[in-house]
């Protein structure tokens, strides 16, 4: 849940679009109160246009599906409570930082892949489309190239054009 909200913040959609509330079966009143609350929050945020956030939404979904994040989430208990193979335990806040860092990297990669899916692009075009700094794009692109997920297509003049594999 925290991770989803972090990613929504990262993508500019905003964490308030997702709300979690605990209600027991005996708390009808509380349920009515929460629904009113969530409706008011959403009303303040205004309508959500998925078309406007097409790339970020695709990237967030891709990130949440990525093996790296799934593995890391699955290992939460083991890493923070039982310790790794060297019997080192991670503090909760350190694990959170690690998870957020991994999520950010995966999110950027997914964003680049989402842009490349629409056709070959140069680094500068990708940076413009995704809103990421050029340097970040080239770093992540490098990682994607190493995993054979993206590659060089051709040179347009002296500008390299990349494509998704």
């Amino acid at each position, binding site marked *: *849940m925290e*991770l*989803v909200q972090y990613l929504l913040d990262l993508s500019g*959609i905003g964490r*308030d*679009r*997702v*709300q*979690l*509330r*605990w*209600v*027991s*079966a*005996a*708390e*009808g*009143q*509380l*349920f*009515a*109160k*929460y*629904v*009113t609350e*969530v*409706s008011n*929050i*959403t*009303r303040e*945020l*205004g*309508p*959500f246009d*998925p078309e406007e*956030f097409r790339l970020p*939404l695709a990237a*967030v*979904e891709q990130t*949440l*599906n990525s093996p790296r994040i799934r593995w890391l989430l699955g290992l939460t208990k083991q890493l923070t409570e039982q310790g790794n193979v060297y019997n080192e335990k991670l503090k909760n806040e350190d694990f959170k930082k690690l998870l957020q860092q991994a999520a950010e990297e995966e999110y950027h990669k997914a964003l680049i892949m989402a842009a490349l899916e629409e056709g070959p692009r140069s680094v500068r075009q990708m940076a413009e489309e995704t809103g990421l700094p050029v340097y970040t794009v080239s770093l992540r692109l490098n990682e994607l190239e190493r995993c054979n997920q993206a590659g060089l297509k051709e040179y347009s003049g002296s500008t390299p054009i990349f494509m998704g594999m």
Partner: protein
Amino acid sequence: MKVGNIEMNKSFEPKILAFLCNWCAYAGADLAGVSRLQYPPTIRSIRVMCSGRVDPVYIIDGLKSGFDSVFVSG
């Protein structure tokens, strides 16, 4: 036409996708209905057998398909 537009803006009814746990929030919603409590008609609920069943990807899918926000309750 214009009046209608203004009215539309004023009464923006959010569409909220709600994932409700069968044993907690869904029963809570039922109780709210039975005891005739008023709450906004903004949620579209999906009953799940446990709120742990809700995968993060479902939330994103909800937003993708045009809901204004997603509400998970258990």
